[in-house]
């Protein structure tokens, strides 16, 4: 039973300055409610708050749409995963984790590496180019989320994957933003 370790979990969350975390079956409603918590971070100016919220939405939508861990009885826009928002004195970090096919995980890791090599102008051009492309048949999203997050992130985005024995790979993505404008 978790009872005996509850204080340890609480202390860990507190020590790591975790503002918000959710693990389990994500729904649109959960995204809305957790997003509301981020929108209330008053120490941020509205521009930064909008960026923080947008990264949270894009990462959560990835779990909703692409997590391979799903609950059969639920509508198809629900996936299982984890979202953690933490802070340091200078930054916020939003991390997402979920299961995906190993091939897909490898592709995403190298895609993120390639995005990290692009400068702001190149990312902007790539974003516009992808937005102009016709929607792929059956695609659940616009394929713009990772590009957008790389554009808004103040540090390279971190993407890694861990192959699991019997259920694909665990994909983790972390994005960091500065609390105040970097001049």
């Amino acid at each position, binding site marked *: 039973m978790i009872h005996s370790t509850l204080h340890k979990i609480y202390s860990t969350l507190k020590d790591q300055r975790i503002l918000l975390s959710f693990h389990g079956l994500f729904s649109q409603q959960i995204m809305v409610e957790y997003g509301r918590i981020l929108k209330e971070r008053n120490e941020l100016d*509205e521009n930064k708050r*909008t*960026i923080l919220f947008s990264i949270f939405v894009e990462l959560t939508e990835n779990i909703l749409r692409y997590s391979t861990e799903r609950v059969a009885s639920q509508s198809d826009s629900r996936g299982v995963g984890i979202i953690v928002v933490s802070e340091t004195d200078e930054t916020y970090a939003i991390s997402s984790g979920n299961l995906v096919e190993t091939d897909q995980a490898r592709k995403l890791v190298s895609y993120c590496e390639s995005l990290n090599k692009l400068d702001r102008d190149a990312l902007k051009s790539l974003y516009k180019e992808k937005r*102009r492309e016709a929607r792929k048949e059956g695609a659940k*999203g616009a394929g713009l*989320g990772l590009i*957008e997050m790389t554009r808004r992130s103040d540090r390279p985005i971190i993407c890694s994957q861990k192959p699991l024995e019997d259920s694909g790979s665990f994909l983790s993505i972390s994005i960091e933003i500065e609390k105040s404008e970097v001049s």
Partner: protein
Amino acid sequence: MKQLDIKPTDTTPSVEFDLESSTLTIAGESFPENVTTFYDPILKWIKEYFTDGGNNRKLVLNLNLKYFNTSTSKYLFDIMSELEETHKDRHADIRVVWCYKKGVEIMYENGEEFAEDFELPFEFVAYE
């Protein structure tokens, strides 16, 4: 012509058409669970507005969005493509008004990036 009057929800904006000023206003936040279900009817409405209305139709697309996700961005692009085409083919009087809150640079930039991509008159309005 069909009325267009969609009330906002937590994840979808309000969509209203004012016949007198020929203004289609989309306002609020946009990150729908199913972006196609939400935006396809709006795109269809715009097409019909011009096909049914003849060559004298004008339209002001008034966008006042506090936040939109990347899937919405793609649909806004499609809506503006449609308007650009109509603007060119029918010489229809069309313009886009992009409203953003002063200081929220990201929302201004989003508008600017649409303006760069289309040959449509764009007007930027900053509110306090």
